[in-house]
């Protein structure tokens, strides 16, 4: 798999939900190469503040059209600047990067996909590829946010998935509580448990979900985040503590991830 540095034209950059934007980019080389779960490093400015590129998962990979879509949340300087870029301007992308999701093993029946907040962005192409390659899979999306104003593409997801369970921390829509709360509620009340699980979201959510899947021996893949310098394995800045008996040991989110099995991560050391 080849990486490209591509000047991508902005086709669309508009609000999608509360403080969340939807970016469409014409980036045919990267789009052609990209897989579900991979990401790009986007250069927000030619200037030196912020200095580093910003990693974004691919929310949609429209290979034939050469289009990439990104869903991003404004959290600071870089995403704030990005949200002000008008249609027609160009941004510089490096990608596709990272290992990407693997499909569940053949014969898998029930797949649960857990998205916390903007974590949904990495999961859309996964859902698409699972449903494409394994139509027999029964796929439920658990999608949790703080408040209903942050939910987006609900109709789209409910069409793509066999089941869609939304949750909000404030109870403004769907289950009142967080994603894992909703998952545990369903498991306890319906007695169902998935044969495979995927998760992406804030680290604190992932840590709790990891505990749950490990306790229940559910095979799974998690998409992790980390601060990134290069995105390609050159700086070793994106290290995350790995479980180990002896000396400390690390995995690197950008090239060994961002998709990991949760049982290799030393969650308690992860900030």
């Amino acid at each position: 798999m080849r990486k490209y540095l591509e000047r991508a034209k902005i086709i669309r950059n508009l609000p999608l939900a509360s403080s969340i934007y939807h970016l469409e980019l014409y980036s045919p080389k990267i789009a052609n190469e990209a897989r579900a779960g991979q990401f790009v490093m986007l250069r927000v400015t030619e200037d030196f503040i912020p200095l580093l590129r910003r990693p974004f998962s691919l929310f949609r990979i429209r290979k034939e059209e050469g289009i990439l879509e990104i869903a991003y949340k404004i959290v600071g300087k870089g995403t704030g600047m990005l949200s002000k870029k008008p249609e027609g301007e160009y941004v510089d992308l490096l990608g596709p990067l990272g290992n990407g999701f693997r499909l569940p093993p053949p014969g898998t029946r029930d797949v649960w996909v857990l998205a916390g907040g903007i974590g949904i962005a990495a999961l859309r192409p996964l859902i698409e590829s699972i449903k494409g390659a394994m139509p027999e899979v029964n796929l439920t999306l658990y999608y949790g946010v703080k408040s209903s104003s942050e939910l987006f593409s609900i109709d789209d997801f409910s069409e793509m998935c066999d089941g869609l369970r939304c949750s909000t921390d404030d109870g403004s829509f769907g289950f009142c509580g967080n994603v894992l709360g909703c998952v545990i509620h369903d498991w306890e009340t319906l007695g169902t448990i998935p044969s495979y699980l995927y998760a992406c979201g804030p680290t604190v959510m992932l840590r709790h979900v990891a505990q749950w899947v490990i306790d229940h021996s559910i095979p799974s893949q998690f998409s992790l985040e980390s601060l990134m310098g290069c995105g390609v394995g050159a700086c070793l800045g994106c290290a995350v503590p790995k479980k180990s008996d002896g000396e400390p040991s690390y995995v690197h989110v950008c090239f060994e991830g961002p998709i990991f099995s949760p049982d290799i991560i030393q969650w308690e050391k992860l900030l």
Partner: protein
Amino acid sequence: MSATLPIDLSVNLGPIKLKNPVMVASGTFGYGREYADIVPLECLGAVVVKGISLKPRPGNPPPRLVETPAGLINAIGLENVGIETFLSDKLPFLRKRKIPTVVNIFGETVEEYGEIARRLDGVDGVVALEINISCPNVKAGGVHFGTNPSMASSLVKAVRAATSLPIITKLSPQVTSIADMAKAVEDAGTDIISCINTVPAMAVNIYSRKPLLGNVIGGLSGPAIKPIALRCVYEVVKSVGIPVIGIGGIANAEDALEFLLVGARAVQIGTMNFANPRVVIDVIEGIENFMRLQNISKIEDFIGTLKTL
């Protein structure tokens, strides 16, 4: 101002001749392969690989990076695969492509520096060793080798005794007199000096009240430090007779030319690779353009021509 002026970018760095003065800095370009899809490696003057130690090292606990205004603090902790894996898994890629490779080395004792230099002596594809002296001297209670001219000198001597390869000694800016350090390592037999390594720095979060780096202290790099680096290179060039490689905050051809102007015979580009992986190519092309516009046919004629009176 002729578009057909033949441009000679080659530079002599004492025992080494490079096809152009632009290299990538240690720790910012992995082992070469990482950016190979993006950068035609054969265009580079040389690749300096990530610092290598005798044994593999896991590095520091995260977070390892913090952005600052026009800068980056890193506390990677010298994570590396160790000399064995480097020789078996990493170097062959560069050697096969005939990319001049400089191996950045470090250790915790003088003996380790000597040992790793011995392992690299005569290894095909390696054009020079770069000694990272900004490392804790375990035997001297963790003081950095690079803070003390006599400790640095003994490192250089140990490496000198262990290898026939050209030696580049990389200096830290965090010393009272970088000129004195430069003289010490010149006297100890280094062939070339490179400077600067990162500037010790720190960042904290006022809400969590915690350091933003797992290691608390890290090293500042990037455009923010360029004016400091340029001053260091100027002082070193004035105080030694051996070639100097300029490093620190280079983001474009103009920056690189500034280092050459004050007397560096080559440059290394570090942090800016992250922001713009093609920066090295842009810099090489930009130097050529500058030379055409200024009617300079050999870059050697530009080096060290700063007028101070």
